């Protein structure tokens, strides 16, 4: 087990900087997920930790040792690839034991490690089969088994679930979490799926255009996003952004959305946003679960308004509603028996205690 540290790590391809200075400290036993859209540099960062890519600038340390110039085989890491990368001509057992056989571990030790990993991943009956006889999920397990058997300092996962169908993905997520609970190896996991990030990580690193947007626990990222990018990336359905301005009305701070709609801010928020210039163009950020049907006895900070719905999506346990506000499409979640219908008006309520205010230009959450 070891900690991993990245200091000002940069990756340049000719003129283009794919990774622009990453600082990251991963504690021992921690499960960290790098998440972001395609091309944000997360895979490149992972591959630099693995030693599959050269580092243009900065340092990477594993267990306190700088590993910039250390070849992958000497870094004591294991990697699970998106395409499994199993050796097609070897059986499952041979695949899993390949690394150990190269290092000339005693046969008994190899066997016991392989057996234990196979049992942990529930692939014991498959050990004599070849990869092409296995399903996608089974292959992924074998790839994980290959990593576990090595007992390395760090596990690296490169989008391992992207090739699996939705149902299998949910199952494998749970497997991975169980394995981590058992084996407790420091893990760096790369994915573009924010659900995987939220469900697996101790801490999530949101990346965009080669930089880190925010690092935090899943809860922190969900409830306290620092930038518009993080706010819109995390959470599904995504957060709504409606253009707005601050206004002083009747002695209280309001947020004005349209000519007819202006909500008074709860006292805590009013205090926080007092200093913002009223002329600034802002965005009101509200998650869909905070836009619901109006209730007879609203709590403080919850404001009601009327609008006409565009489309409804009955999901069974709730109904998603879509309507337009000042040109922006807004999504809300209402009770299935709230009477929501396509094209019909509905009285909705917004919970401003959970609002976010963003500067439209800089994207920063205020």
């Amino acid at each position, binding site marked *: 087990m070891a900690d991993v540290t990245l200091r000002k790590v940069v990756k340049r391809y000719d003129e283009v900087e794919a990774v622009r200075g990453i600082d990251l400290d991963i504690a021992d036993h921690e499960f960290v997920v790098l998440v972001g859209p395609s091309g944000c540099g997360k895979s490149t960062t992972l591959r630099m930790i693995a030693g599959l890519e050269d580092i243009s600038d900065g340092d990477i340390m594993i267990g306190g040792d700088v590993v910039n110039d250390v070849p992958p085989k000497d870094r004591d890491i294991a990697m699970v690839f998106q395409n499994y990368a199993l*050796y097609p001509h070897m059986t499952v057992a041979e695949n899993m034991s390949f690394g150990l056989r*190269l290092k000339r571990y005693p046969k008994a030790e190899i066997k016991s490690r392989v057996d234990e990993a196979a049992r942990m991943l529930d692939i014991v009956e498959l050990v004599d089969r070849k990869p092409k006889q296995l399903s996608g999920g089974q292959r992924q397990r074998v790839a994980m088994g290959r990593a576990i058997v090595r007992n390395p300092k760090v596990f690296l996962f490169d989008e391992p679930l992207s090739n699996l169908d939705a149902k299998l993905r949910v199952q494998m997520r749970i497997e991975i979490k169980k394995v981590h609970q058992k084996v407790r190896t420091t893990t760096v996991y790369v994915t573009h799926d924010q659900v995987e990030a939220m469900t697996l990580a101790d801490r999530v690193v949101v990346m965009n255009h080669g930089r880190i947007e925010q690092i935090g626990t899943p809860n922190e990222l969900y409830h306290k996003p620092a930038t518009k990018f993080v706010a819109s990336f995390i959470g599904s359905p995504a957060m709504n952004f409606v253009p707005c301005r601050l206004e002083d009305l009747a002695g209280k701070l309001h947020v004005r959305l349209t000519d007819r709609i202006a909500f008074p801010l709860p006292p805590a928020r009013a205090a926080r946003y007092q200093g913002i210039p009223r002329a600034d163009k802002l965005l009101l950020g509200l998650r869909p679960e905070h836009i619901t049907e109006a209730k007879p006895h609203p709590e403080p900070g919850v404001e009601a308004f009327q609008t006409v719905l565009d489309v409804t999506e009955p999901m069974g346990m709730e109904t998603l509603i879509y309507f337009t506000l000042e040109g922006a499409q807004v999504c809300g979640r209402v009770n299935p028996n709230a009477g929501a219908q396509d094209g019909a008006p509905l009285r909705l309520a917004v919970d401003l205690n959970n609002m976010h205010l963003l500067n439209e230009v800089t994207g920063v959450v205020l």
Partner: protein
Amino acid sequence: MADVALQPNRAAAQTARKRSSLHNALKRKSTVAFLMTLPLLLLIAALVIYPAFYAVHLATLNKSMQRFVGLSNFEFLFKRETFWLVVKQSCIFAITAVIFKAVLGFIIAHFVHNIPAKGQRKWRGMLLVPWVIPPAMSTLAWLWLFDPSYSAFNYTLSFFGIGPIPWTGDAMWARFSVILVNIWVGAPFFMIMYLAALKSVPEQLYEAAAIDGANWWQRIWYVTLPMMRNIIAITTLFSLIVTFANFDIVRILTAGGPLDQTHIFATWAFRIGIEGSDIPLGASVSLFMVPILAVAAIFILRDISKRGNEA
């Protein structure tokens, strides 16, 4: 009313159907398909398969092709020392050349694979030239390079104090030269095949092996070679047959000399059958290639299908 009206229609439909059944047969997929492959089948049947069997018939005739003499042509050959010399030379020639071609091709393919993609095309282009030039033409160039009096190689070697080498005059050197030219002509083919195969091995397998702790030759041994088993087998078989049955190079370089020391089946059959006008004997010589080729083919094809069932 309705029945009466239907009757004449049905009769008309029946005759129409009879007339068009031939038409339909022609339009049917399997007929068209067969017709499309017919030229190919005729070509091969008439000019490959039939002559092969005809050769067997010819081998059982006497020199003037009037009498049936059974296996006496073969008996005659077996007693000739030159025949066994030819068998030995053909086998050594083929096996040595193919091994070197394969290994050289493999090594070169690796080097080409290692350099950045932009340059690969250029190098690949340069290195394939020996295979593009008609072998007869390039063998002439080698003949000139090996010329007893004016050899450019001997000229260069003389600067290092190495005496003039009788490239085509001395038996051992002649054999060396023939094999060398064969390697020169054939290695690029292996290179291009292996290069394509190398590219088809997923990069991630190498990365996984690197992480598992393999160094460069372990990666070749455990990842590259197993993935390329099929290609290696097919190219080796192809090349064994082509090299074994080679004619151009030996004919032009040494014409089988000196003293029959470089004769292989093809050139000796030509000498006996065409130049010596003894067709049945020439046919017998050529036919002797068949069992040897068949044995090699069986071994290698068995290996391929075994891998095919596994992989």
